[in-house]
């Protein structure tokens, strides 16, 4: 599973797109142009992109409240995403979901989730569909270190293991459950070690190294596609923004964040890819310019998208209700 030039372009482009998207959303939120709860993914790009490089539209992912990065990595249109954050009719959920429930089933993206630990059983179910239908698809369940402590996560891992479901559980350990450090809230020293309880492989990788994530994910996803059952992948990572926009981040220091910035996943990968002659400097510059334009286009699309009528609130509850 060598990284080709095309893959390198895709990986850098997706990570850069997530970064710019999130930084612009932070500004738009601060300017009062986006309402509600917004949780930003910047800093964690290597995890979503390293994993989703192996997936196609027929594969499923479940996400978390910090879902924009997963959407972009899974190919959801940034314009529809931005329109959703703006609450417009052209949003991927017609303005009914917002940031915390953003989804696009047509891309296999089964939703960000406002419930910590809400996604793992759904991912097991999506994998069950793939298994019953024999489609060869896999499901990836993204969850945080906070959700690692939820019963649903353990129930879903056990269920997936006994039914040999094609699912990969990916713990994005950004080291804080909201503001509570993982060292406090988790009795285990490694979340990946919990895989042993379910007789499935458990691996910890550096979530700041997209190549490492890509390689570990490649193995886990291939195993799932072969029908050999689930795996657990723990990616150690760090978010640049607070738990939510407006968070004053009083629970960690600026020095800690600065240290992570030194190893920023985007600049690290750009350098590695140039060293290995997969990308040229011009490629990086061009992609950087392209993604900025994509995000500005997305904002323009969102602003041009019509507002819903109040009574649009009354539709889409049921498929049919007499």
């Amino acid at each position, binding site marked *: 599973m060598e990284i080709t030039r095309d893959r390198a372009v895709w990986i850098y482009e997706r990570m850069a797109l997530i970064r710019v998207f999130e930084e612009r959303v932070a500004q738009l939120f601060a300017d009062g142009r986006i309402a509600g709860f917004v949780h930003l993914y910047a800093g964690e790009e290597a995890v979503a992109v390293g994993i989703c490089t192996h997936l196609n539209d027929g594969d499923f992912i479940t996400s978390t409240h910090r879902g924009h990065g997963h959407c972009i990595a899974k190919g959801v249109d940034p314009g529809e995403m931005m329109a959703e954050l703006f609450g417009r009719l052209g949003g991927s959920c*017609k303005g009914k979901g917002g940031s915390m429930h953003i989804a696009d089933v047509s891309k296999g993206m089964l939703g960000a989730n406002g419930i910590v630990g*809400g996604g793992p059983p759904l991912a097991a179910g999506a994998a069950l569909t793939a298994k019953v239908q024999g489609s060869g698809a896999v499901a990836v369940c993204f969850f945080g270190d906070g959700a690692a402590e939820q019963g*649903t996560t353990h129930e879903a891992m056990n269920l997936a293991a006994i039914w040999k479901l094609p699912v990969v559980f990916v713990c994005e350990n950004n080291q804080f459950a909201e503001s509570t450090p993982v060292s406090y809230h988790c009795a285990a020293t490694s979340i990946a070690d919990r895989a042993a309880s379910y007789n499935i492989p458990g691996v910890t990788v550096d979530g700041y190294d997209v190549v490492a994530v890509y390689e570990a994910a490649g193995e886990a996803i291939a195993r799932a596609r072969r029908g050999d059952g689930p795996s657990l992948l723990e990616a150690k990572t760090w978010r640049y923004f607070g738990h939510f926009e407006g968070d004053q981040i009083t629970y960690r220091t600026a020095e800690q964040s600065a240290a992570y910035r030194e190893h920023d996943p985007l600049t690290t990968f750009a350098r590695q890819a140039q060293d290995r002659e997969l990308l040229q400097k011009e490629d990086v510059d061009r992609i950087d310019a392209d993604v900025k334009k994509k995000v500005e286009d997305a904002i323009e699309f969102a602003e041009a998208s019509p507002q819903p009528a109040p009574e649009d609130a009354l539709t889409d509850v*049921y498929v049919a209700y007499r």
Partner: protein
Amino acid sequence: MAVAVRTLSFREAINEALSQEMERDPSVLLMGEDVAGGATVPGFDQEDAWGGVLGVTKGLVQKFGRDRVLDTPISESGYIGAAVGAAATGLRPVAELMFVDFFGVCMDQIFNQGAKLRYMFGGKAKVPVVIRTMIGAGFRAAGQHSGCHYSVFTHMPGLKTVVPSTPADAKGLLAAAIRDDDPVLFFEHKLLYDVQGEVPAGEHLIELGKADIKREGDRVTVVAIGRMVQMALDAAESLSSEGVSVEVVDPRTLSPLDEDTILSSVRKTRRLVVVDEDNPRCSMATDLVALVASRAFDDLDAPPQMVTAPHTPVPFSPIMEDFYVPTPEKVAEAVRATL
């Protein structure tokens, strides 16, 4: 063409609906604790295993195999959530929540995931899952295995709720629920499982949202739910000897609710009694009375009456439990109070 009709028990009618729908549609599968009861597991040679804790799904694993009749671990959040996820991605799972009282351990997956996905995704997903669950007092099973609680689920937008009262209705409504594209909670009263009734043999579908008039009358309307329909019919029979003609309306589905049938019955009789085994606060009973009070106030000749369980958990002692459940005598008393 004559439709073949046999006498089946409520339990057999449900089993037949499951079996026929599984034959018809390969995307239908069952999951739940003990639904196969370990039958057909290699090395576990109990051919005649449980098939559900009260035998409702007996024989189905032998017929459809372990890939479509899935025993689950005792982890309701895990497998109910998996059923929701599978429904959102193309299957039609029928999950069994053994006793409705267990909703406490899996409500998030029903309420925040199953019921809301379609809405939160702007109508771009559907969740055709059925959750079958047992309800009702009378088994001396006390506080955590005897509640009804369908009112809780009826309160939640995105869910449909079905409470059958006869074997034929159970078959027709379950088949319709499985074919429905929305999440349906299907409530089976455990004291009804041995009740016998005529059931059509072939395909039998009852549209969700259509009430059934189980007995016609013109003096008092009694709306009764699930097992309480029989209480109402018994009361109606004894009241007829007093010259009081009672109409018994069975809503069959609580959401969607057939308001028209209920309102037109009340407009005819001008009197309403609701019989509901669920607890009385924020319940179907209060909801039905509110419906009639707000939409048919000028048609009423008497204040509506409610015959419900008391606002307590279900007690263990047979003496106390028998007091807890509405009886035909209590229904008749409420009917007389409207005259």
